[in-house]
């Protein structure tokens, strides 16, 4: 099971731009590498990352094999209301992880 680290400020002023950092453990096997016997190692990557803020999508990324192992993504959003920020990673071989973080907007 993959583990994800997310960094969302727990509280923010209304209208403030907050920076969100996410890190998830995943090998991001490119599908271009070979074993010592010459067999191609099949691709196994995270294809998609979506961030929703109280159910509304605020950020989305499509990842390709050129993203490093343990994908690290930094982006920002405007703190509009208190609630939950949710993160979804989906990828090859049925990979799906969801994490959420609460945010208090004053």
């Amino acid at each position, binding site marked *: 099971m993959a583990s994800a680290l997310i960094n969302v400020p727990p509280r923010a002023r209304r209208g403030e731009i907050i920076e969100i950092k996410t890190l998830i453990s995943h090998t991001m096997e490119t599908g271009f590498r070979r074993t010592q016997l010459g067999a191609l190692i099949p691709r196994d990557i995270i294809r998609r990352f979506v961030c929703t803020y109280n159910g509304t999508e*605020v950020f989305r990324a499509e990842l*390709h094999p*050129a993203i490093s192992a343990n994908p690290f993504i930094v*982006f*920002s959003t405007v703190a509009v209301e208190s609630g939950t920020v949710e993160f979804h990673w989906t990828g090859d071989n049925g990979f799906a992880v969801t994490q959420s973080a609460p945010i208090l907007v004053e």
Partner: protein
Amino acid sequence: MQRRTSRREFLRAAGGAAAGLGLGSIVAVTPARATPAEMQEAIRRVVGAAPINPGRVKLDLPPLIENGNAVPLTVDVASPMTGADHVRAIHVFTQKNPQPNVVSFHLGPRAGRARVATRVRLADSQTVVAICELSDGSFWSDRADVVVTLAACLEDGI
């Protein structure tokens, strides 16, 4: 006597081969500066026929990269990020990786600031291109030339 001659011949041949390789790599490097067709194709698939203007985007990569497996990459776009004028998407492409696409970010006015960062793999010394799409449909780009000493993707697995 016979052995010595063969060794000398071998060394001479090896030296010649090395010189040939060196010359070959110089010859190979020159045309690579021109944008390879595959990356152009990948860019056109995203952009369509629209013109791509230089400016507004800032692609930040270290110029000298020791390890191509995890290269910090930051894209910053000068945009007010309002409902009427914001960045819709940011795409990153490379010339010499096995695939030209690296990542596509989709943003909107809710982002507040058009600045994203991640870590990428780079297979070789090459040019990396970032293209952003604004809400008015225009495309802007920036490029960065990087030197990679340890390439990603080349080491053997398991």
